[in-house]
């Protein structure tokens, strides 16, 4: 099977600090991969390079066979908007917009008319257990509910890959596991791949396989039992 996303020989330095030292990593369509490692190991840098947020110093990143690391910022930005979805620990929802408009925003940015974008965005609410919360603002949602809105927003454009950086880091264990289950299920249900950066083995346990980064090097790769 062809890889949906592939990073080869990725290196990245910040001054004297080596964040990535020649990392190779691939993700297959529909696969969920967890990136683990201690703080400062380079796992977020790897995610940012794979997502086209950051340009590696050397090496290359390909999405469905097309090289993306040498694209200009404008094209990479458009790519992130249309082919990738993002879920962060917190803070990614616009506090002024109601939940349904937060979800519809990526569609509107892609040129979809507002009414249609909101209609399509609202379809995600019931499956994610958010029925009736469409008009609520982020400040009126619990942490778990806000993360589910963020998941809906990441998936609404039908992306190829969803990137999640510590998506349950701000949630209690039960809510975190529920959120992770929904993230993995919804991502797979839509045929997207998932890359999750986490410290939590429980979160990593929801993924198909786990890779560990230490001192900028990919140490081991293990498939889920």
């Amino acid at each position, binding site marked *: 099977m062809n890889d949906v996303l592939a990073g080869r020989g990725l290196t990245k330095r*910040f001054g004297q*600090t080596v*964040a990535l030292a020649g990392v190779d990593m691939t993700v297959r369509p529909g696969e969920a991969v967890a990136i683990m490692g201690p*703080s*400062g*190991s*380079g*796992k*977020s*840098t790897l995610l*940012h390079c794979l997502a086209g*947020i*950051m340009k590696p110093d050397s090496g290359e990143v390909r999405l469905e066979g097309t090289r993306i690391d040498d694209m200009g910022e*404008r094209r990479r*930005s*458009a*790519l*992130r*908007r*249309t082919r*990738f*979805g*993002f879920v*962060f620990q917190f*803070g*990614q929802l*616009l*506090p*002024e*917009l109601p939940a349904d*408009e937060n979800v519809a*925003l*990526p569609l*509107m*940015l892609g040129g979809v*008319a*507002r009414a249609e974008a909101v209609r399509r965005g609202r379809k995600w609410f019931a499956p994610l257990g958010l029925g009736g919360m469409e008009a609520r*603002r*982020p*400040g*009126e949602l619990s942490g778990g509910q806000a993360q589910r809105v963020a998941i809906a927003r990441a998936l609404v454009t039908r992306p190829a890959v969803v990137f999640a950086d510590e998506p349950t880091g701000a949630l209690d264990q039960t809510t975190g596991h529920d959120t992770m289950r929904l993230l993995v299920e919804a991502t797979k249900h839509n045929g997207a791949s998932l890359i999750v950066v986490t410290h939590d083995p429980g979160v990593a346990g929801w993924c198909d396989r786990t890779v560990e980064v230490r001192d900028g090097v990919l140490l081991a790769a293990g498939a889920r039992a």
Partner: protein
Amino acid sequence: MNVGLAWRLLKGGGRRGMLGTWLTLGAVAVSTALLLFAVAVDFAFAARADRGAWRNPVPAGGRTAVAVEASRYDYVRGKEITVVDLAALPGKSPEPPPGLSRFPAPGEVWLSPALAELADRLPAAELAARYPERTGVLGDEALVHPDELVAVAGRAPDAPELTAARDSDWIVGSPPVKVASLAGEPTEDAEGYQVLALIASVLMVVPLLVFGGAAARLTVARRDQRLAALRLVGATPGQVVGMTVAEAVIVAFAGALTGAAAYALAVPLLSRVEIDGGPWFAADLWPHPLVMAGAVVAVPLLTGLSAVAGLRRVVVSPLGVAKRETPPGMRFVRVLVLFAALAAVPMMSSDTSATVIAVVIGLAFLSLNLVGPWVVGLIGRITAASARRPARLLAGRRLVDDPRAAWRTVSGVALTGFVAGFLGLLSPGSLVGTQDTGHLRVSAPAGQAAAVAERTRDRLKEAGVAAAVTTRKDVVVIALKEATRITGQDARRKELDEPLTQADPAALDRARTALAGLVPGRTPTTEADDEYFGAQILGDIAVGTVVVLSVSFLVAIASAGITAASSVLDRRQTYALLRLAGTPLEVLDRARRAETLIPLAVMGGGAILVGAFCGIPFMMTDPNLSGLVTLLVCVGVGFTGVVGAGALSRPLLRSVTADPAPRPD
């Protein structure tokens, strides 16, 4: 402990933290400089009034009279000369007036430096011959402003200048008065200028207060999360407040010192602004050292207090900043307050008492500030409901979310719009005067018009000035022959029953000089001379309007810039994450622009209309072209300035979104 920690936090704030610090420092510096200007204006007019008081004699009344004093106005090259006649009463040795080393003896004349210089520069027959016995030069203490033309003439107490009947109209001078001292008292027009200066100060201070709020908001934008974190690790509310005050005060103190220095540098420039006939002594524009020290101390303390007020949510709850809920709607009663104030406006007229006018206009001004956020919220709802593109949707939702913050951005320009609308209608254009300089008139003592006319002809002939001299009742009219006709004032000409003319300035001054002392205590004047004061005060109102509007707009534009920057800093995390998720920078920037421009257009226009509505009852003439031009220029400058100030924070937006993942983790 608090100051030490605050200082370390300030130094360790990083590049963006320092940017916020510099912006706060700049905002406080501008506030301090303008505050000093607003205060100095009042001191400056008071100093002028005090220095000019000795020429406005106070009758001795029950006290022992020591001198006789009279004053009148003469003219040269279209400028006014104040001529003061002084005589010591027999057996008395009065103290000399300010600026003179001794009391002038009969026949002596002291000239102000500017008049002495002019007398030396012009041919003697045009000016110097009016003062044949120049004795000395007046010191600055005798002068209202450095370019003032003043002549002090010593007389005998029984000299005709001090005994002959004079016109008591204040516009031509003041008749001889026996005085107990030459202290005098400020003239009515000097006091009028002080009242106008006070109004100007108030009009400038209102936008300054708005600006202060914006600066404080900026300090809070940088601190809230950090201080919330300190609360989370156990800092007491007292410690948080202490650190806030310490940090705000450190920055604001540096800003206040910078502002004071900037004001000092601006004084030479400001002293060139001509009001009441001339520029300023630089010393007049220096506030008293205690006021200066007070501003440098008070501004940082007020900034500290504003920061504390802005941080009360953090102090109340460490989670206060993070929780965002639907804001409660504002009440319609705000609009009713404005309508109530405006309903009172048509009932006023120029005859209404000044207190009632001030209260009604003040209420309208303040209620505009009250209504602003409500209208911004309404505009936000309309914008959000009708938005088809993301930028407008974001802008509309932002306006609904925090209409007060959006109002803060545009309130300075909107409130200045009110002032512009009010003054734009109120400012009369030019005085509807004749500008006639071709005819000199002098009142002759009763029954002596023919004799005075005869002497006039002799003197003019001797001076080589061609003129036709006639009498009209007790007035001798001198029509200069080398004058050109003024056209276009048919109604006025019919009223005067003679053609209006403009004389060659040199010929006019030769005639004035030849006729000096013709009728003791009286000066031959033209129609233009008689219109001098009115024209000057209208000119001063125009200059004052421009100064007040310039200061207000400077503050408003700086305020808009600071608020835009603090808004970017406030939302830096959201902006960075949106950008990271692929939102184009243009969309974020367009949303920011719409968020400012939509309320600016509605509120700025609305405020101008409200201001103009409030000005209608006080219109002296039809709206004049220059007033409308001032208004249009203000609108244009205000809009451009706010848009420009907002654009200045675009690099900041780029900076907070350019590198969304700087950590090597």
